[in-house]
């Protein structure tokens, strides 16, 4: 069993900043306030920075190390079905799909929110509705993400939430 550094400082700061900012905007901050808008811009800034880091960052932060793949995702589901515990050092294939989903959803939430503030779309119902549907989708995805992290932590005997804090994954095969 070995310990591998998988998440660099940028990835970890990005992850937990996004958690705080999204939670603040979705649950706490007043919807029509300026603060809500500024937090929204900050989230978009974070996502754009993360996408940039996906091309120039460290090994497991790069998109090249977790390309979206249907066949790899099916393989991971087969592992789950057959009770196999093959480890993935970086993102798992199913986890990768969740990341692309969350990155895209956050960007679209930011875009629809921005459109609501422009003269052209101010007061239109569909932008507001789209914004709310996207937020519901994001919340649903986050619940699924947390459930999957707990499930995979137990299945693979690796504390994944702690890895996102310390940067190290434990219990990987030699």
């Amino acid at each position, binding site marked *: 069993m070995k310990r591998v550094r998988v998440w660099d400082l940028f990835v970890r700061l990005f992850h937990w900043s996004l958690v705080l900012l999204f939670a603040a905007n979705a649950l706490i901050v007043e919807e029509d306030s300026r603060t809500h808008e500024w937090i929204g811009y900050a989230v978009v800034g974070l996502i754009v920075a993360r996408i940039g880091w996906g091309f120039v960052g460290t090994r497991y932060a790069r998109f090249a190390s977790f390309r979206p793949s249907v066949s790899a995702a*099916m393989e991971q*589901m*087969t*592992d*789950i*079905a*057959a*009770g*196999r*515990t*093959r*480890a993935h050092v970086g993102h798992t294939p199913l986890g990768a799909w969740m990341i692309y989903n969350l990155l895209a959803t956050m960007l679209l939430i930011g875009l629809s929110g921005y459109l609501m503030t422009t003269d052209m779309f101010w007061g239109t119902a569909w932008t507001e509705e789209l914004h709310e549907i996207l937020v519901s989708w994001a919340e*649903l995805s986050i619940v699924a993400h947390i459930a999957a992290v707990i499930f995979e932590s137990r299945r693979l005997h690796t504390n994944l939430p702690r890895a996102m804090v310390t940067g190290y994954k434990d219990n990987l*095969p030699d």
Partner: protein
Amino acid sequence: MTSPLQVSSRTPAGLLILIFVQVICTIFFATDVVTDFAESGLPSSGRYHLIVEAVATLSLCAAIALEVRYILNLLRRKAHLEKSASIATMAVFDIIESHFDAWQLTPSERDIAMFLVKGFTIPEIAAMRGNAEGTIKSHLNAIYRKSGTHSRGDLLSGIIDSLMAERPART
């Protein structure tokens, strides 16, 4: 070999999409039931509406559970039957599986037992499954205990015997 007598073991993407849509619907209905109940309590007028809605939601949950189980079974089968298999292979496979059913093996034990039948060694199975060899050995003990056999040869004999008798095991 591309004879028409081949059975595909592909996972139906349609079923995955169906599960996904049903999960969304379940969440939608469940929140509706909860908000209706919170708003009105249980007045006589809305009671039947609420009950019907709750039953619909629960049956959706049951359907999702069944579909997930079906998909997991399909994936387990696919784990040992890559691409497509002939009818004869499928029949042999089914008989072996019916033994595993009768012995009530867990998903991990079934996976290991199938590798065992195929003739893989313990280190090979450990490598393919990402387990330690000790884990495989303890699973093997459980397989022998549940099947009432003592060795790989013993286990194989039982399966081959039932193949020649042309009937699946019923314990």
